[in-house]
């Protein structure tokens, strides 16, 4: 709503005051720029050696210098992350629906899920290596393991919080459990599901990079690990920068999908 009002009033204002800037829209860019500037000045002012903390200018220089391996490894990491995340979406949705189906299943599986989630994934990677060898597969599985929990919890919550009145109205009409799930439970849990994708995608990056760092010959994690062993600190930071960019891009994509798929949930909060 705010966007539409701004759009409709903007031309009139622009005609009068051509120099008006939309600070809210510019803020993310300005703040990022500010962060890099502050960082640059800090490093220069303190004279920090490049092996401790390279200045942004030095990092961008590394980006240009190593663009080919950066691109290749970024693509690999994006691939493993997206694949693991995709599996997590399918698996998380399925398990979430399964858990939300009945109170008994919910009570029985929930503690197990929490237990699994509490296990540090870095401890799981060596097991995956024993099973599948190093490389892509453990990275995909780690990304999957770390990102599916928030999806499960959110889908199950959506199902578990159906209003009792809605359920009564439908049950009094002779609705079976499946009817209630299809007509109410699943559509209702969709905003929770799409909301959880934003959390899950960033976690998926954590998982894949973790696995690549410990056990892979490809990917940003592996690249950063070897750059670190050669004291090529600017390249390590260049890798982090690439990860941050990928993370933000995928997050925005999920946020966009969320808005597209469950617009009703957002519009309803705006109307109130």
């Amino acid at each position, binding site marked *: 709503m705010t966007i539409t009002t701004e759009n409709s009033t903007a031309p009139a204002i622009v005609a009068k005051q051509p120099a008006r800037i939309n600070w809210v829209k510019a803020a993310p860019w300005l703040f990022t720029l500010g962060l890099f500037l502050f960082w640059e000045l800090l490093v220069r002012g303190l004279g920090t050696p490049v092996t401790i903390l390279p200045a942004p200018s030095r990092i961008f220089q590394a980006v240009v210098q190593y663009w080919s391996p950066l691109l290749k490894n970024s693509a690999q990491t994006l691939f493993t992350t997206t694949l693991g995340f995709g599996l997590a979406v399918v698996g998380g949705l399925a398990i979430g629906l399964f858990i939300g189906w009945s109170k008994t299943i919910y009570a029985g599986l929930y503690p197990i899920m929490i237990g699994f989630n509490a296990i540090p994934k870095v401890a799981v990677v060596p097991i995956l290596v024993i099973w599948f060898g190093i490389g892509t597969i453990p990275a995909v599985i780690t990304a999957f393991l770390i990102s599916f929990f928030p999806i499960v919890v959110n889908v199950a919550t959506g199902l578990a919080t159906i*209003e009792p*009145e*809605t359920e*009564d*109205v*439908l*049950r*009094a*009409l*002779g*609705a079976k459990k499946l*009817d209630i799930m299809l*007509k*109410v439970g699943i*559509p*209702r849990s*969709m905003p929770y599901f799409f909301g959880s994708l934003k959390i899950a995608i960033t976690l998926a990056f954590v998982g894949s990079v973790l696995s690549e760092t410990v056990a892979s010959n490809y990917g940003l994690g592996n690249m950063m690990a070897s750059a670190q062993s050669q004291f090529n600190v600017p390249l390590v930071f260049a890798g982090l920068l690439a990860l941050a960019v990928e993370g933000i891009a995928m997050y925005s994509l999920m946020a966009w999908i969320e808005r597209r798929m*469950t617009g*009703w*949930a957002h*519009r*309803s909060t705006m*109307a*109130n």
Partner: protein
Amino acid sequence: MAHLVSIDDVDMRYGGAEGTLAVSGLAMRVDKGDFAAVVGPSGCGKSTLMKLVTGLHIPQVGTVIVAGQHVTQPVSIVGMAFQNPTMLPWRTTLENILLPLEIVERHRHRLRANRREYIEKVEHLLELVGLKGFGAKFPWQLSGGMQQRANLCRALIHEPELLMLDEPFGALDAFTREELWCVIRDLHAAQGVTIVLVTHDLREAAFLADKIFVMSARPGRILKEHRVPFERPRDLEIMYETRFNDLVHQLHGEIAQARAVA
């Protein structure tokens, strides 16, 4: 089959043998086409009564007979509306009202082929409750009173023989409430549906009902049954007449006493 609803000596206890006894020795009869209201102190088991009649709860003791059938499972000849309109926000008003048809056995297999006919039915109902042209709106685009009107349409779309209303107007302001009283009054007159209204509002009960049941405090049972003598159609003006106020006053006294006993 003189009575559409008859309840005899019903005990309903929640949570096993040691649980709370919600209603005890409950007995009431509602004739076909009647408008019955149930009033009583809060926590008197009015909602339990709703669930017993609709078959959502099966009593441990006694019998509930609806439309000649012993109630042992949810009865699909009933429409329900609660204080909370519980419209599904991802469906338009029209789709919300069609929802019961997707559930009830008799309609669900016909719905796809005869969608046109059903949509006309929804539009007719929307017109009856004063929501003509709002079918395409989402529930959150409607005011509270409009949502409650749509809720009534949803309760009526599958042509139930019995309409159960659980304080449907509790959350509305006084003027909207009076408007909806008239909507219900006209629906009852036009559709010939039997209505059981559970309410806290004594004026609402006296204005709308033919029969008022006064319930005791928990465990609930029927203390008294009033026949409302006012002729139909009733106008809102009736609420300012002495005989109306006398009835409300009498009901008020009975409930105050029921509360004091508890």
